[in-house]
């Protein structure tokens, strides 16, 4: 019966989801600025992952596969929607189907991510990407290199230059702390 029966493979998928869902959701959220769209993207990626791989354990690097898929899906998302990364908060809350407490919590998350995005917006895309993948998504430089399809040394350089630029910006604006 195998996959047709669904049980053992869905169980296997459940374990993969448990392991990566938070990371992937954060990854998608930082690239879309929308809870609902991030949820859809992650959901679709997992479903496609399950449907396209009859043996999940045979996928060589599941983490890479999933991050790469989310990354591609986010690129498609921006191509299709041409949405601003973070929508007007009021609008998002109105359209949310979450309860009040959840909405408040999500507002806090969104403000926090807005703050970080403002900082990274100062940097060239390549540098902000390297930093956000390392800091927000907690990927190693090697993993980032695989996803971006560039050498590890390039990732490290982008990361370092990005940090240096942020440092300069902070010194110039005399903002010693970013709300810490």
């Amino acid at each position: 019966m195998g996959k047709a029966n669904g049980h053992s493979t869905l169980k296997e998928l459940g374990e993969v989801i448990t392991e990566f869902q938070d990371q992937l959701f954060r990854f998608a959220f930082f690239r879309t600025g929308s809870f609902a769209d991030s949820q859809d993207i992650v959901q679709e990626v997992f479903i496609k992952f399950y449907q396209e791989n009859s043996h999940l354990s045979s996928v060589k690097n599941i983490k890479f596969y999933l991050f790469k898929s989310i990354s591609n899906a986010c690129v498609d998302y921006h191509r299709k929607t041409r949405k601003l990364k973070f929508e007007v908060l009021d609008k998002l809350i109105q359209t949310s189907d979450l309860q009040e407490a959840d909405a408040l919590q999500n507002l806090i998350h969104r403000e926090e991510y807005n703050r970080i995005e403002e900082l990274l917006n100062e940097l060239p895309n390549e540098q902000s990407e390297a930093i956000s993948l390392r800091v927000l998504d907690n990927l190693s430089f090697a993993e980032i290199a695989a996803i971006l399809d560039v050498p590890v040394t390039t990732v490290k350089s982008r990361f370092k230059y990005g940090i240096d630029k942020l440092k300069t910006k902070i010194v110039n604006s005399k903002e010693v702390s970013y709300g810490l």
Partner: protein
Amino acid sequence: MDFNECKLEMVNLFDKDIDHKSLTGLLEHIQHCPDCANEYREMEKILSGLKPKTQLNAPILLKQNIIIQLSKMEEMKNSTSRTFGISSKVRKILSIAALLAVVLIITPFVVKNDAFMNGTAKAADIFITSSIEATHLIKSMIIKLKVRTISDDSFALVGTEYPMVDHTIWKSFENPVKWRVDKGDRVAAFDGNSQYLWLPKTEEGIKAGPEINFTEWLQILLNPANILSQEQKLTKERGSKLTMNEKNGLLNLTITSKARGNFINDYCKNKSIEESDNRREYTFDNVTKLLKGLKIYILDGKKETLIVEITSIEYDLKLDPSRFVINLPVGVEWKEYNQNFTSETFRNITSQRVAELFFGGMARDDWKLVGEACDFFSSTSEKARSVKNQFSGLKVIKIGEPFKSGLYPGEFVPYEIRLKTGELVKHNLAVRNDNPNKTWIVDGGY
């Protein structure tokens, strides 16, 4: 490590996968070099400022939604193939099964499809999806239940006047999935490839592919996760009442539904779950989210009769593989399940005429003709011979006006016959022609 090397390599301190040698070398240098130490602290401060103060996690239902969606897709795929070649009686039973379990989402869930879900619906949704997920993690289960039915009749038959009959369900969820459902005088099993139905009283062994549903409404208990999602869809089309409460670590869900079907003649009223006004009481373990119990009551005015009761459910027990194999007695062989009825005699006639031909054949010992309408009489087994002998030489007293009842896709033909023993038999012959050839077959009632 010197100053220049440290400047060059310092970025590695912010990697997850830094090797021990680099780490030691860098830290040792930083300890003794104020410039590098300062540089390191500044970088660390910048990165700390970039870390979110609140940790964003995936929505609680994300995983469950994915599992449910895939379950639905698989269920749709399976039901598409299952529909082929299944009699509508079986399809009816499938829908009974579907009704049985989970009208749990019910109206509040549907009504609040927009904007904010209300608390009860959301709680029910979360619980049900958790339960589906939990079901996907179990390896095996044994369910013991009692059903008011007849031990050798179909798995769908229930009746308030019948005794409680013990049923046991074994299921192994490990690949390949296997199960066995046993109600004493009717046993169905699936060995991972084929389904088997064993009817010891008539010594009939029928073999079919996985697409056929031998377990009828009990299938709901074999596939709780799939049925849960299927019922979500069904409840959008039907009005049912749901109540939910928690007590002593158990979550109790009660669903009350009205009978479905045509009851101008109430012959089928209360003969199956779906054809009855009923109340279904589910109990879930609030910690494991797994089903702990089920009671179904048939409601008739102020009277309510317990019709189904799960007496125990055990999960993740080791099951003997031989449990999923049915051994036939010597001389009995598996017969392939066949829905390709080709008799020309039983085409393009009325159901009343079917009954006349059927009993007429018995009266004349024309077992070839009788066998065209009811395959059992084609058999040469000892049991078949015994039943033929019982009906042989009967006298037809009366064949009445056919009627329809409940959800049965065929018709019932009232009859009176006198057996050669002198016994008078009055009953309704169940006949149907809902097959591709529109050939009438006798489904029961003799």
